[in-house]
């Protein structure tokens, strides 16, 4: 480096530098002069023009918030609406004596100390000229009282707004969802212009997945106001475009039937219109009242919901993961027929347990003495585990995975609701990636009876059952049937429509077994076949919550309620022309046949009754 200093010419460098300093200062001065010219143009030449816009009467651009679209069920009953609500708001800058005003208001309108305190806190965080609410929703009495006394309260005003209301409360909260105040994180993601003036946004369910359609398009008005911000004149108006009204495929009567039928149990019921894929019933019990979320739920109330053992905020139908148990058997049976590893008439002997060659472990049947010689139909009707152990072993996990995957297990159904879970359909690859272990033959067996790693959502079960009912036609389930807006009517969600190639006779064999589940002497759900003129195909299931040791006995009465088995039932009807597919999961319900099946039976009965009456 020192070599380079030698050829540095310090005096010439210094001269060059000083020249540049002078040049820079001239440049800065010229650019500043440019700014000044522009300022003169705005503040001297344009002063009159801009003063007109701003001095005494200022032009404001006021966003005109669109009315949010309503939500209806399939028969046009209102599931979500907008109700007028009145708030009492104060602009601190325009209040001559705040303490006096507040104490007079408190006396006049019987406002609680907490409300006053809360407002005081809010006021400190706000700018003095910003209007902020003292009372969020005024009673009619308060409205009338204040309307008379208003002249004595400068700076205090009544604001009218529309508040979202859900008349069916907890019945369909998991489907419709709710709107809530826009939070900071959402504000960053939202298009500023579209949401200027909007205070709420869909947070859950249909309200969230159809946010853009429901919200509508914000308009604006250029208005002239005086210093007190009172409106003088509207110069220009671009009307907002209200959000589209949504018509769901959901039937709220049927929804109520299913919800009530679950009684005091936690669980889920999903019913799908086999012809279209439209969701008729989407119950997750317990539900919750979405209305407090709209105005801002109190912290204690929210904590109570969050910490409740029954988890009311948890959408069991969409996100609940359950082992499907024996409800998986019709699909395994169909896989066996399609891969040609069995035929429907072939009989196996069931001694009450099954052993893999060279292993002492006994895979037990639910029936202690065994079922004797069983063919496919009987295996489904009586839910013979040994038959399916044998079948699973013959199929192997790879075939089972391939086949069940076609029916949508292990992946999201694609329903028009956010937050869906994909469940778990295990495979060799999955186990190697996740657990870094090889697949064991015993795991194939228990997958064959719907246990082990397998996890499904009630929605997936309903969709798969509908697929079976329609001979392999796969339809994406959807909730929104049509959207009616200013631009006209649009259809709702569109899903893929494709068919799994299946042999008709194989499907018939499986369905025959399922019919016998309901309509034969030995059927596990024969309790629901009374007084019906049509046939129901079904399959019961019981999913273990607790692992039972070898030779141990499962005694329902001796164990804690929360460790009792889940009861499941999948079904469709009528068998000769399937209309509706229903999946029921009753948490800790015990047996599928006695607890879950009657719920499906009631839903089917009510749906078909109405259908045939028309």
């Amino acid at each position, binding site marked *: 480096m020192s070599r380079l200093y030698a050829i540095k010419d310090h005096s010439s460098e210094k001269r060059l530098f000083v020249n540049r300093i002078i040049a820079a200062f001239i440049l800065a001065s010229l650019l500043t002069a440019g700014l000044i010219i522009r300022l003169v143009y705005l503040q001297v030449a344009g002063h009159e023009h801009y003063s007109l816009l701003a001095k005494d009467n200022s032009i*404001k651009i006021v966003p005109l918030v669109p009315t949010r679209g309503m939500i209806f069920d399939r028969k046009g009953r209102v599931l979500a609406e907008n109700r007028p609500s009145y708030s009492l708001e104060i602009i601190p800058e325009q209040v001559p004596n705040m303490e006096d005003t507040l104490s007079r208001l408190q006396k006049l309108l019987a406002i609680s100390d907490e409300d006053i305190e809360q407002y005081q806190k809010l006021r400190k965080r706000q700018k003095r000229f910003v209007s902020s609410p003292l009372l969020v929703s005024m009673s009619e009495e308060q409205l009338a009282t204040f309307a008379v006394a208003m002249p004595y309260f400068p700076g205090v005003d009544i604001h009218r707004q529309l508040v979202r209301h859900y008349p069916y409360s907890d019945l369909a909260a998991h489907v419709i969802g709710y709107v809530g105040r826009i939070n900071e994180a959402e504000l960053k993601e939202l298009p500023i212009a579209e949401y200027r003036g909007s205070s709420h946004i869909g947070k859950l369910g249909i309200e969230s997945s159809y946010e853009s359609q429901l919200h509508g398009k914000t308009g604006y008005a250029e208005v002239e106001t005086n210093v007190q911000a009172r409106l003088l004149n509207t110069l220009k108006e671009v009307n907002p475009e209200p959000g589209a009204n949504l018509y769901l495929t959901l039937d709220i009567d049927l929804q109520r039937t299913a919800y009530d039928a679950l009684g005091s149990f936690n669980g889920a019921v999903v019913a799908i219109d086999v012809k279209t894929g439209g969701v008729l019933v989407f119950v997750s019990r317990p539900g919750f009242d979405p209305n407090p979320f709209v105005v801002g739920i109190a912290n204690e109330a929210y904590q109570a919901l969050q910490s409740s053992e029954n988890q009311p905020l948890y959408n069991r139908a969409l996100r609940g993961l359950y082992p499907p148990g024996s409800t998986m058997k019709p699909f395994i049976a169909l896989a066996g027929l399609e891969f040609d590893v069995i035929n429907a008439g072939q009989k196996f002997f069931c001694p009450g347990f099954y052993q893999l060659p060279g292993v002492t472990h006994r895979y037990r049947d639910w029936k202690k003495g065994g079922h004797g010689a069983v063919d496919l139909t009987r295996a489904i009707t009586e839910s013979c585990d040994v038959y399916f152990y044998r079948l699973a072993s013959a199929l192997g996990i790879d075939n089972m995975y391939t086949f069940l995957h076609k029916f949508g297990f292990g992946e999201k159904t694609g329903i028009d609701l956010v937050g869906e879970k994909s469940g778990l359909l295990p495979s060799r690859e999955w186990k190697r990636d996740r657990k870094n272990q090889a697949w064991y033959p015993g795991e194939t067996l228990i997958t064959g009876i719907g246990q082990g790693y397998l996890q499904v959502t009630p929605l997936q079960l309903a969709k798969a059952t509908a697929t079976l009912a329609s001979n392999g036609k796969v339809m994406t389930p959807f909730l929104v049937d049509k959207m009616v807006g200013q631009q006209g009517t649009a259809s709702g969600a569109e899903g893929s429509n494709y068919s799994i190639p299946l042999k008709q006779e194989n499907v018939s064999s499986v369905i025959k077994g399922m019919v016998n589940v309901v309509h034969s002497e030995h059927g596990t759900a024969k309790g629901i076949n009374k007084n019906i003129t049509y046939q129901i195909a079904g399959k019961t299931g019981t999913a273990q919550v607790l692992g039972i040791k070898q030779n141990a006995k499962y005694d329902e009465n001796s164990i804690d309620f929360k460790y009792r088995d889940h009861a499941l039932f999948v079904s469709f009807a009528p068998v000769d022309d399937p209309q509706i597919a229903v999946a029921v999961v009753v948490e800790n319900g015990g047996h599928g046949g006695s607890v879950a099946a009657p719920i499906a039976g009631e839903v089917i009965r009510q749906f078909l009754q109405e259908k045939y009456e028309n």
Partner: protein
Amino acid sequence: MKTETRHEHFEAPSVLGNVLRKLHIDIPLFIGLLLTSIVSFVILYSAGGQNMDVLMRQLSRVGLAFTLMIVLAHIDPYQFKRYSSVLFGFGIVLLVAVLIMGQIGKGAQRWLELGFFRFQPSEMIKITTPMMIAWYLAEYPLPPRAKQLLVAVILIVIPTLLIAKQPDLGTALLVASSGAGVLFFAGLSWWIIAAIVTGLAALTPIIWHFMHDYQRDRVLTFLNPEADPLGRGYHIIQSKIAIGSGGIYGKGWLGSTQSELDFLPESSTDFIFAVFAEEFGLVGCLGLLTLYLLIIARCLYIASQAQDSYSRLLASSLAFTFFVYVFVNIGMVIGVLPVVGVPLPLISYGGTSIVTLLAGFGILMSIHTHRKFS
């Protein structure tokens, strides 16, 4: 310190002078910065809705920034020179870290969480980039030759791209101009400057291609604010009305009506000049611009008095960047430049930029008060 003894036979000794020399404070610059800060508090009180909390928070930040400035003024400029490349390299590493973390966090990220405070590497880079370029070029005879120019350009482009990727267009612009400033003061030929200006004009479509959608929106809005009156264009329309209605003498302190609209959310930060112009009018604006120009003039004077190439280049570049700050912010507020997120230096509400700015002035004071007179 050794330098003090040398000062004594150069200037007439006085008690005050001695104290100030020991403090390493340059009085004219200090007064200029103090005046600007006072203007800042006055206008923030109005723009922030007369909220004392806002003022106190800013006061504590400004206090911190002034302290940092005085600390840096005490460090011998030789130390800055010595650690230039290390600091620059460190800054680049942090920028990359921020970018990687941002990608993991799936979103724009500009800072590192350091437990009790957030650190923005891009702020540090605003100073270390001119330090690096000045250090590199000062080793060679000036004006720089082609090879050195090429290296310098690469050194400028790296942090600029890393910051533009965050994406933070405003800061990227300031970093690029701080580096370009060094090249200009190092004596970059006027022909090359002319060629770059023409080249940039020709490159515009390519730059457009690489811009984020929101950045394009800003440019489009700048060209035609009325097209999006509820969104971005609103800022520009409102700010023009505010400034224009201020007239020659303004509406007086706290007299702003336009900026008090809830629709100008950045009235305390990037758009604070609109509030100032509305309340204090053209006269106030001229005063503020004069104050800024005086600060810049003093900085350039300090640069001209510096005793080695490194100090000269660094000092002049810091002065140049300060001007770019002022020009870009006011330019965007009065509607002659597109909206990029650059605050009005020393006046806008916010902590990060004021700390970096005063750190720069600390370095300038260090350069000026550590001169050796032999």
